[in-house]
């Protein structure tokens, strides 16, 4: 593992955050995760505004996006990212509890790269998150302009 991409996680539930980070710890990926707690904060990170004003100007290697978020919801974040010339190349993985076909259709129409339903079973959840992390942060070649360590 020579280079690791940064993972931007957008998740409002602290327990989900903890469980996801626990799952990623096994692969030493947890340190690469930036956690934002709502859509507004995620956009602040992407545009280097507010508390993220001083961060380097690179894009994350992947964004793990929950759909149901306070303030600005996941769909809106996705729409903003896809309509911005500088951000539209960021791979976006929707990680949600929603099985609804409606959500799936809308996400794919907005150009999401993957849609993952959080499994209730913890082992499955851990595996799903690990595989996501490994695939997007390690195996996948992120688009040029992404942050690397």
């Amino acid at each position, binding site marked *: 593992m020579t280079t690791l991409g940064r993972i931007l996680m957008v998740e409002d539930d602290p327990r*989900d955050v903890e*469980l996801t980070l*626990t799952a990623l710890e096994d692969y030493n990926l947890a340190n690469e995760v930036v956690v934002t707690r709502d859509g507004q904060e995620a956009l602040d990170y992407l545009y280097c505004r507010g508390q993220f004003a001083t961060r380097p100007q690179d894009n994350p290697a992947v964004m793990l996006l929950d759909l149901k978020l306070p303030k600005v919801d996941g769909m809106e974040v996705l729409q903003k990212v896809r309509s911005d010339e500088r951000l539209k190349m960021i791979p976006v993985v929707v990680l949600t*509890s929603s099985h*609804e076909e409606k959500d799936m259709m809308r996400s794919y129409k907005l150009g999401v790269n993957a849609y993952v339903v959080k499994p209730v079973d913890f082992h499955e*959840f851990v595996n799903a998150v690990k595989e996501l992390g490994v695939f997007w942060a390690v195996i996948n070649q992120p688009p040029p302009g992404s942050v690397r360590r």
Partner: protein
Amino acid sequence: MVRWNPELRKGLWWLLRYGLAVVSVAIALGMALPLQAYGFRDVELPLFALAIVLTAWHAGIGPSVLAVALSVACFDFFFTEPYYSFTVSIRDLANFLLFVVWGVIAASFVVVRRRVEEDLRQARDALEVEAEQRRQREDEIRRLNRELAHRATELEASNKELESFAYSVSHDLRAPLRHLVGYSELLQKHASSLDDKSRRYIQMILESAKRMGNLIDDLLAFSRIGRAEPTKTRVSLEQLVNEVVAEIQQDTKGRDIAWKISPLPICYGDRSMLKLVVINLISNAVKFTRMRQQAEIEIGCVNGNDDEPEVFVRDNGAGFDMQYVNKLFGVFQRLHLAEEFEGTGIGLATVQRIIHRHGGKVRGEGVVDRGAIFYFSLPKPRDATQRTASAP
């Protein structure tokens, strides 16, 4: 208009009609006498004829007969020799009779014409009444339509509500469950300091949470079937059944199952939904024959009536008591203990819902410890839409 007593009105009307006969003949006479005095000859006949026709036209047959009689009398009295007497000379008799015949014919023509007119008027009135009734019926239809539209909006609203309810169940109910499972698993990882009892408790928490997860998933899938509109095509049930059996055989290696699949009809319905029906029925048959040395599962078709062949799935498994047959298709209704046979009890409810959405029928028969048989039938395409519309 003044509301008169109908008796009085009728009498007055009669008086007017006969009065018209008298008056018109009198006017004709009044005009003919001076004209004759001034030396105009033979004007009296056309004038009397005019009076008769006028009376016949406006007053009908009775007054016209009166007019003819009066005209004849006047003609005889004033205009035929000998004057001022009702006797008729032989010379004028032919002339006289001709006038009478002419008067009668003219009057009868006019009266027939009138009668035709009267008939036409009655027909028109009848038409008007019918048109009025039709208008009332149309109003009624419009009212019912409005009511229906109103109901449809209400139904749509409640459907939307149900949808958002299912959505929040799907999203919000699952999250805490995932945490419950997640933290219990983490606790189990650090379980070296726990005794056996505590470990068992954690195991129970995990199993219950997983079970609840399954219940939520099943309930959501079930509600989705209710909301999705079936897209109907021609489906070969035989192909569908073979497909499903092939899939299920992957999971039943090591079991001795005698499959018997008879020729099945082609039906009309939503393929993925019908596949769900077949999967549920066949996997039930597989599940409930688990304790048999050799399981027998038969899928076939009986022609209950020629129009709607009934497809059945028969097994020689655990069966069920027919006294609980009304609970068979209920949501989360189970007729066996969870230790005997796993499952949430949504399978047959799903089957029934899908078949009903197609306008079909489903039923089950069973004998405890001898096996069960489930039948379903789907309507033919031509009356499928009707039946679906009236299905609950």
